[in-house]
């Protein structure tokens, strides 16, 4: 996973609440066997008209937002299906930072597994960059993870909260499976503590 520390990039505003992961990656693309290449399908049904003609009315296709890497979103972003294809597609398209008033739980978790920084700001705070992004072409934001701040060149600056452990994971690009495997003795001890006394922890088909 690619670490992320300080990131400055073009902002794309997506002014919709409750954007679900079905919209980010529709099901017909779930059949792929790898984690790469989902970027071209990001927001597929909103983005393309029949025949994969880009829909000029969808914000992702506005020329001014080409190359955006900071996604500005509304409440409950990433709700619905657990599909991790959603963050894979966002990342593959080029988004490294997502700013929203709130995120759905599973999606929020999935971001951290993929080197995407999800930033939660208050509703009223999010309104301001929305205004600025729509008013100023080429509007950029900087997300500074070590200092937990979002800022722009015009003096806007917001502090954001993030769990310390998650912050460290993103800063160092940690492989959490590797980390957990280091706790192997604890896992084995847990299994030994629980297995003898309870069949709960074994799965036996008693019909066979």
């Amino acid at each position, binding site marked *: 996973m690619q670490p992320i520390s300080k990131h400055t990039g073009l902002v794309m505003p997506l002014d919709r609440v409750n954007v679900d992961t079905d919209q980010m990656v529709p099901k017909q693309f779930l059949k792929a066997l790898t*984690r790469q290449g989902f970027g071209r399908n990001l927001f597929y049904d909103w983005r393309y008209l029949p025949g994969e003609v880009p829909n000029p009315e969808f914000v992702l296709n506005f020329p001014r937002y080409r190359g955006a890497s900071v996604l500005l979103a509304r409440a409950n972003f990433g709700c619905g299906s*657990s599909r991790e294809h959603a963050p894979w597609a966002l990342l593959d398209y080029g988004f490294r930072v997502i700013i929203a008033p709130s995120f759905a739980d599973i999606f929020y978790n999935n971001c951290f597994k993929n080197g995407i920084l999800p930033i939660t700001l208050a509703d009223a705070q999010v309104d301001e960059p929305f205004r600025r992004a729509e008013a100023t072409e080429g509007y950029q934001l900087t997300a500074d993870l070590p200092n937990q701040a979002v800022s722009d060149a015009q003096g806007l600056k917001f502090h954001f909260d993030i769990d310390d452990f998650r912050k460290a994971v993103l800063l160092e690009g940690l492989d959490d499976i590797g980390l957990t495997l280091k706790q192997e003795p604890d896992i084995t001890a847990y299994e030994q503590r629980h297995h003898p006394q309870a069949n709960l922890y074994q799965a036996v088909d008693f019909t066979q």
Partner: protein
Amino acid sequence: MYDKIWESHVVREIPGEPTLIYIDRHLVHEGTSPQAFAGIEAAGRQVRRPDLTFAVMDHSVPTKNRELPIVDDSARLQYCAEFGIRLYPMGDANQGIVHVIGPQLGLTQPGMTIVCGDSHTSTHGAFGALAFGIGTSEVEHVLATQCLQQDRSKTMLVTFRGKRPPGVSSKDLILALIGKIGISGGTGHVIEYAGETISRLSMDARMTICNMSIEGGARAGMVAPDQTTFEYLEGRPFVPRGREFHVLVDEWMYLPSDFGAKFDKTVELDATQIAPQVTWGTNPGMVTSVTERVPDPNSFRDPDEQKAAVRALEYMALRPGTPIVDIPVDRVFIGSCTNSRLEDLRAVARLVRGKHIAPTLKAALVVPGSRVVKAKAEEEGLDRILREAGFEWRDAGCSMCIGMNDDVLPPGERSASTSNRNFEGRQGKGSRTHLVSPIMAAAAAIAGHFVDVRELGVDVTE
């Protein structure tokens, strides 16, 4: 109850870090898991507990013409054999939707931690288990370590008071709750469903409720295990027998929340006031009673909600003020992990017996949740009743809930569906979904538009 299960699964706790918890059952399906296996292999890692991992094909399997070779997906779970994981493939007698077969096999038991790369894993909470959906990276993590890094959730108590009126299904109870708290009302929480309405429900009905917890934003939903739970479990393939079973039941009796247990949030609903529900928009929170009308977007106070409602009505091609019962449907889908169990199919069969689907209907599909449900239904002759009424009787799978196989809703068409998501394009690009209970869907199939099932005098159970 959440705290009890949580505490008994802590492997390692360090302040400032997420807790490492042990996972008792890991369910895997072909939709979201191939990349996780590939990751394990690429890193040269092993699956720690193949014996606690179970795989099933459900998301993209065809529900008809199964004798034809399938081109598409045979390779997707090839890893299972490699790692020694038990797989229920398409032809297996036990195959079905992962959230239907887990309980049916008795893999799901009270007090367990259960995960699956699928957000509707919350279904298994109906047994008093802590069950939630995870992403593919987490699937890989569980495969490698049988553990998961988790932060403790907040808890929410949802109490349904009073007796469920006849014709009102558990689906209506959960839709009414989501309508009340909104689709992010449960975010960050684990919901416990309680109250006399819930304790009178069958396991099938409780599963429907827990299933849709995620639609209210909660990762997990649970119901305290009781006699209904134990009776359901006794004799299931993976449930111990005889004396051992009774030892387990004694343990399970300690699981329910203690009297006066504290919750971070509490919500109460009066079940006697709940009518059959129909969604009118593009998320499950956009829902109303069958006796109501399509709402006017201006009736919402929040400007974001207003905008969302305008957009939803445009997508759904509905005019504000239209009575719900005047909305015609093109297709009816009865199935999905929410409503495809025996009780659902029985109720549907009772309602449609001797009747026929409306001539205006393009198709009505019944897709049993598992091959076991299918076999039992056929034993009872339900398939015959349904076929005679004009329904198509299919093989088990996710089918039109997600439209990953050939069962899709064509653009612009409108469905009455017993599934759980009415997102844009969920059942097929441009498709318009109305979520309802099984008997509401069946009644809509017969009438060609929504009707209030309470007027038909049919209940969910006999």
